[in-house]
């Protein structure tokens, strides 16, 4: 399937996932609420990128460029948080 019919299907899926993430946010699922919300958002983003942005039909370097931003954002966040989240592990102020 391709073209407008696929686009319509994806639109419906995206709207459905939006409803789902709002619904789930009202449930008390403890520490899972953030990961679930993020997974749903990532799925939606992936759908937009694959179908609407035609990444599905592209290959090679476009994939690289598309992933690079997210990968490097991951480096920025993970390594910075490796500092913030480990402060106070040792009983030495500032370490």
């Amino acid at each position, binding site marked *: 399937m391709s073209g407008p019919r696929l686009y319509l299907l994806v639109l419906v899926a995206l709207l459905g996932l939006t409803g789902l993430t709002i619904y789930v946010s009202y449930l008390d699922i403890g520490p899972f609420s953030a990961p679930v919300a993020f997974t749903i958002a990532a799925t939606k983003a992936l759908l937009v990128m694959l179908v609407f942005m035609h990444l599905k039909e592209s290959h090679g370097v476009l994939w690289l460029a598309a992933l690079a931003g997210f990968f490097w954002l991951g480096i920025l966040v993970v390594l910075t948080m490796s500092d913030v989240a480990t402060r*106070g592990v*040792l*009983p*030495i*102020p*500032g*370490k």
Partner: protein
Amino acid sequence: MSRLLPFPIFPPQASTLAPRTDHLLFYLLAMSGLMSVLIAALIFYFSVRYRRRPGNERATQVDGSNRLEIGWSVVPLVVFLFTYVWGANVFFFAYTPPPDALELYGVGKQWMWKFQHLSGQREINELHVPVARPVKVLLTSQDVIHSFYVPAFRVKQDALPGRYTEAWFEATVPGTYHLFCAEYCGTLHSGMIGSVVVMEPAAFEQWLAGGATTSPAERGLQLFQSLACNTCHRADALARAPDLAGLFGRQVHLKSGAVLRADEAYLRRSILDPATDIVQGYEAIMPTFKGLVTEEGILDLIEYIKSLGTAAKAEP
């Protein structure tokens, strides 16, 4: 070697950390010196031996060698990892104060260092410490970032506004040493210098006794009362806030379910942003004291709370 020159090229070695730092330096100098000499010698030799001249107008084409590439990737890597471990080892030593260290407080502000001894002595741009005794300085800043730096001790630690950091050292040689601010802090950054005076224990005790005023714990108690903290933080049935005796260093159970250690940063946050960490069983009724108490006042309060007993001392 410094003796041979009319000016110094190596800093005095006056703390237990200094020789460790210097040994690391000597190792690095030897290692990198060896590498530099090797590379320089090869370049020099190849450049002369294979210079363009009659009889050597054509180079012998060689594309490379995987064995060499692996060799000069892996061998340096092993050397680097060794260096890393050594460096980390010194670092860990440099920031882990012994438990019996003499405590004092340091506050940086544009452009001076203020120090507070627990017995009451206060100093500006001068710090008197005893020889052969570990000393730890709890640092903060009143305005911008400063950095507490004593080259003779090889000690450096930034003093951050809104946070506490800690430097410690054990001086080994009596004398007077430079104290610098190493983090650029504005117009008179280079004027934010002073000295650390390392004294024999007896002389230090004498100095400490002379001119001592109210101790920070006493000032903290006065502040505690004048800010009316004691109307809620009390041990009896009228208490509407946690009793602070034996609090310092203890595990605190929060309303949110989290468990924290009551360290300096926690106490500071609880004075300025009381709603952030509400203790289990209590309500968020405490107002913020932001603007009502100075950085030094907060340190006095912390010292007062510490004087009420710490977890280590309170537990039998």
